[in-house]
């Protein structure tokens, strides 16, 4: 964006849209396991994700554009998470929060999907078991950068 002397902005539509998208990310209330508790802490007084415009946790996928997969994903949950992801409108982003969502974590067994990226396209991985809310805040900031620079396509297929 550049400012002229006549007090108006010149920008491209795409940049403007990306600016709007990154400034109000609405996460989905989708808690799976331990990490969900730390995800809830994001709206608590100490961490306060509202300062980045991302505090509006939506319960319905149709109003959300960020899915924070918080916790271990069991095989039984896979169809559910796929359906919820499909119900989210585009553009949509996915953060794999914690070791289990990123790679299966310490649960290398018959029940747990070894990383949520086996079923969903993941934009940001957050390490930790569970990651502290600061780490998730950092991930949200990184996601904002990626959206602004056009790196994170948000599930939209590009030609």
């Amino acid at each position: 964006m550049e400012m002229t002397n006549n007090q108006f902005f010149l920008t491209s539509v795409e940049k403007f849209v990306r600016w709007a998208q990154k400034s109000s990310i609405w996460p989905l209330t989708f808690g799976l396991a331990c990490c969900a508790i730390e995800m809830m802490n994001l709206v608590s007084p100490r961490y306060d994700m509202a300062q980045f415009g991302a505090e509006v946790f939506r319960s319905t996928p149709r109003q959300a554009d960020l899915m924070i997969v918080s916790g271990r994903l069991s095989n039984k949950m896979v169809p559910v998470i796929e359906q919820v992801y499909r119900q989210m409108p585009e553009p949509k982003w996915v953060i794999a929060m914690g070791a289990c969502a990123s790679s299966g974590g310490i649960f290398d067994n018959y029940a747990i999907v070894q990383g949520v990226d086996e079923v969903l396209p993941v934009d940001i991985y957050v390490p930790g078991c569970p990651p502290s809310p600061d780490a998730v805040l950092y991930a949200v900031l990184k996601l904002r950068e990626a959206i602004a620079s056009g790196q994170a396509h948000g599930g939209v297929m590009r030609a």
Partner: protein
Amino acid sequence: MRQVVRSGDYDLDLEELVIEGEGDRMTLSVGPHHPSTHGVLRMVLEIEGERIVKATPEVGFLHTGIEKTAENLTWQQAITVIDRMDYLAPLSNNLGYVLAVEKLLGLEVPPRARILRLLFTELQRMASHLLWLGTTALDIGSQSVLMYAFDLREGILDLFEEASGARMNPSYFRVGGIAQDIPEGFEDMCRRFLDRVPERIREIRNILDENPIWLDRLKGVGVISAEDAIAWGVTGPNLRACGVPYDVRKAFPYAGYDEFEFDVPVGENGDCYDRYVVRMEEIMESYRLCRQALARLPRGPVMVNDRKIALPPKHEVRQSMEALIHHFKLVSYGFDVPAGEVYQALESPRGEIGFYVVSNGKNKPWRVRVRGPAFYNVFAMPVMMQGALLADMVAIIATVDPVFGEVDR
């Protein structure tokens, strides 16, 4: 039967809003992704109008295979997966498991470790009840209580972080004691936190206790009789809300609870409101226990002085060949536990959590079976929901306080 829903205020024919079903009955599936289910519970409800006729919980969406995974880890390593079972009370899980293994080994932990364990599990109970309070209040519609409760809970997480390095899932206890002694200044930090508790709890109760919305949503809702609760295996605050003073800490004292003074708060009616009151009073009882534990915390070691169980001190490892060998053996192979089976129950924030541990004399558990209290509490929900309104389902699920890591394991 065709049922046409008409709006009273507008003279519109809402022919589109037709509900079809057998008779007046309709089946409604709630969850597993639903804001009120506190995790991944699916409730299949049969409703007549707004009344719930039958509720069937479906669980297993978070099945992690924790019991099976524990069989492939050494006795000390298994603590880490057991942590992640009931993730609101990881230290209670830890304590149950290490007590069971210590029973098999015939170990007596040093007094400082015993009292520190008690202090940390009681802090954990406060943290768990505070989180329950915040989320329940949010479900009922009060967002400010969530903020108050989370603010106070942060203080406890800070204490955990200070002592163990992790906010949640600390894996702080070990077979034979605790991982490391509390850092310098921890006791003062703990006292400073405890100073805040009574005032803040009073504040929260001032907001909620006589709030007409809170009372309307909780009083007389989700009632379960003491007989039903016992028959369904309900334990913990949910059972005590029915007036049954059963608390494992009193009935089968463990970890030195018999030396401490505390009361077991009970309710009368077994409704959602009593479950709330019991939990709030339990926070204050935990507060009392923490104060007592801090006051009588002795000096001394926090691990048993048994080189076959406890890691040798670091300075010895650098100087002594035997200590180095012990260190290597314990870290790589672990230790053998005599063959046998043992059941250890304890009072977690959700009720009686039991660990049935079987050893075949090797360095790994042969079987770790967990009796998760939340599992039994979830399956008593249909009794509470019988005849309740659909909107009450939210209050009932919230006040039963299920944690699905533990239900599904």
